[in-house]
């Protein structure tokens, strides 16, 4: 009898001790779910490889990406191209430069444009949307009016086709890589602003906000301490997805000739544009950068989608 009670006591002790472990916050749980998602792992691997290549690319590239080392071997007017071979893994481009080295070095430009553009869109968009949402949550006539005005401006931005807007910005600011970053970033602003504002609006009407108000919590703390943190998940997901869009749009702008004026500096979009002319005789020259862009964008999209699922409060167990 006593052994039985001992056993029960020990069991109770054991269960109790695990019970005292700290609770899992939503972020911790989301991270746990993210780690177990295949989609997230594949996406993260792709992004990881891409980032490493972008960082170390220029140092590990076997040849200079701008030097025409095999001049004479490539004769574009006679449709003579050099395909993959032992010393040039991906062959030579139309100016007899090593395609593999150019791909490696080009990754950095692409990543830079993607990150800077998304960062620009995220920062400005989140500020505008957050301010607008906070004004709305803090309430009052003034708050509502501020929100209305800001959101109408954002709506106008949203109404313009993104690539067209980017082209006009690039045209006004002149041809440079910075222009591409700004153009692609500006296009992202209304997306982030609307998203954050919408999420804050939805959270602002929730019961726990009402409860905080009933508790006597100050409105500023409600807006920044309750509404904002709960509205961030869609924005975080969008940031990842935006990186993919930004990379594609940056490539598109470069392709259209609005990117870096120095076409010797490798960039995937530019490479794609240049390869187009020789597509009949050397299609692979277009396929490499295109694949690079697609796979990278895919990586970010996969991670973004996985994050969307991980952060979904409805899937919380």
């Amino acid at each position, binding site marked *: 009898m006593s052994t039985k009670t001992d056993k029960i006591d020990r069991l109770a002790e054991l269960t109790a001790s695990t*019970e*005292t472990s*700290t*609770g*899992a*916050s*939503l*972020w911790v749980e989301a991270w746990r779910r993210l780690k177990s998602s295949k989609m997230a792992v594949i996406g993260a691997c792709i992004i990881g490889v891409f980032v490493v290549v972008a960082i170390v690319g220029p140092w590990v590239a076997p040849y200079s990406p701008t030097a025409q080392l095999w001049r004479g071997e490539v004769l574009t007017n006679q449709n003579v191209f050099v395909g993959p071979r032992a010393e040039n893994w991906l062959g030579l481009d139309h100016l007899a430069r090593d395609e593999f080295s150019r791909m490696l070095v080009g990754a950095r430009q692409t990543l830079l444009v993607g990150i800077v553009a998304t960062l620009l869109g995220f920062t400005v968009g989140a500020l505008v949307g957050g301010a607008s949402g906070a004004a709305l949550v803090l309430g009052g006539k003034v708050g*509502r*009016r501020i929100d*209305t005005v800001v959101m*109408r401006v954002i709506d106008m931005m949203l109404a313009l086709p993104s690539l067209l807007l980017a082209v006009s910005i690039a045209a006004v600011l002149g041809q440079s890589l910075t222009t591409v970053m700004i153009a692609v970033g500006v296009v992202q602003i209304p997306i982030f602003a609307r998203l954050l504002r919408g999420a804050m609006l939805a959270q602002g009407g*929730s*019961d*726990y906000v*009402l*409860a*905080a*108000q*009933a*508790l*006597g*919590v*100050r409105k500023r*703390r409600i807006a920044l301490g*309750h509404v904002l*943190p*709960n509205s961030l998940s869609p924005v975080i997901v969008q940031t990842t997805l935006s990186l993919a869009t930004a990379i594609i749009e940056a490539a598109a702008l470069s392709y259209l000739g609005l990117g870096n004026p120095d076409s010797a500096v490798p960039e995937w979009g530019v490479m794609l544009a240049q390869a187009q002319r020789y597509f009949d005789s050397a299609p692979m020259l277009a396929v490499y950068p295109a694949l690079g862009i697609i796979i990278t964008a895919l990586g970010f999209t996969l991670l973004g989608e996985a994050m969307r699922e991980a952060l979904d*409060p409805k899937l*919380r167990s």
Partner: protein
Amino acid sequence: MSLLQLNGVKVHFPVKKGILFDRTVGHVYAVDGVSLSVEPGQTYGLVGESGCGKTTLGRAVLRLVDITDGEVVFDGTDLAKLPDEEMRRFRRRLQMVFQDPLGSLNPRQNIESILSEGMEAHGIGADQTERRERIRKILARVGLPANALSRYPHEFSGGQRQRIGIARALVLEPDVIICDEPVSALDVSIQAQVINLLEELQQEMGLTYVVIAHDLAVVRHISDVVGVMYLGSLVEEAPSDTLYAEPRHPYTRALMSAVPVPDPEVEDNRERILLTGDLPSPANPPAGCRFHTRCPWKQDTLCATDRPELRDLGGGHKVACHWAEEIADGRISPTHNAAQVVPAGHDGHGGDDGDGGSTGPAEAVKTEKAATAAE
């Protein structure tokens, strides 16, 4: 002297339209002139069907919605006219427990953070250690384990979450707690636990409750005084036992008759009133008595033209009906255009001999809405 007194409280929500700047095109008369008073240590129960404005009234007391007109006098202060910051400070003494236990807890806060937030806002407790001590006491009192502190709302069961909600209100040591449907989201077995907890806490701490519910049994169990709301106004108010023993307003009768009786014989023979039609839109409430469009006892005079005031019939039993005495005496019988009349044990149209007020087995008037309200 009553601790909380409402005088002609109105909450009208503007209906807005417009592209760039909103323009008010009408109002929803959610609460339209409610007066009541709550004595210290008492429980005031508010019942009514969905959409009758009982939740809005509860929120109006805490100024969580803007009060259009009227006074909310708490301990001698009219809350309706207080500046925002002073109102915020008053909320320490007036707390609220919400219907949805999970929805009313911020999913990103752990229990310690949820419970200490109110104390921080009101400057209670010198530091976190002192606050934590107070939180531990309250947690033990509402029956939650001490290790709950570092856990998050989604890790608890429904009943535990509601206990957290109650603890959150209690740490501020309030005088009045407004319980907005405190148990309707919980399992029946848990409901009893939470109701009992609320009662124990009231006795220990001398709390005053305003309990908003649509469950007539819950309200009867917990309340000293019950007010029945219909379309934004009180139609009847009486001490709990009196109201349940002899409801005087036609609407209250319909509500009460929808509560099933566990005795099958009584159940078969008792009066049942099934109201026809829906609750009218609070954006366009009927003129005169709000209930006259569905009232089985509607008369040709007064009902459609004059809005009845809540008047005392004696013994604190207040009714807002022009014909309350006549209906009770059986001098007025139900008219049949507004309600379906089914005699007990028969199918089809019932006789006209029913006096409606008696407990006689002959008359049964049914109400669909009342059934929903009593669920």
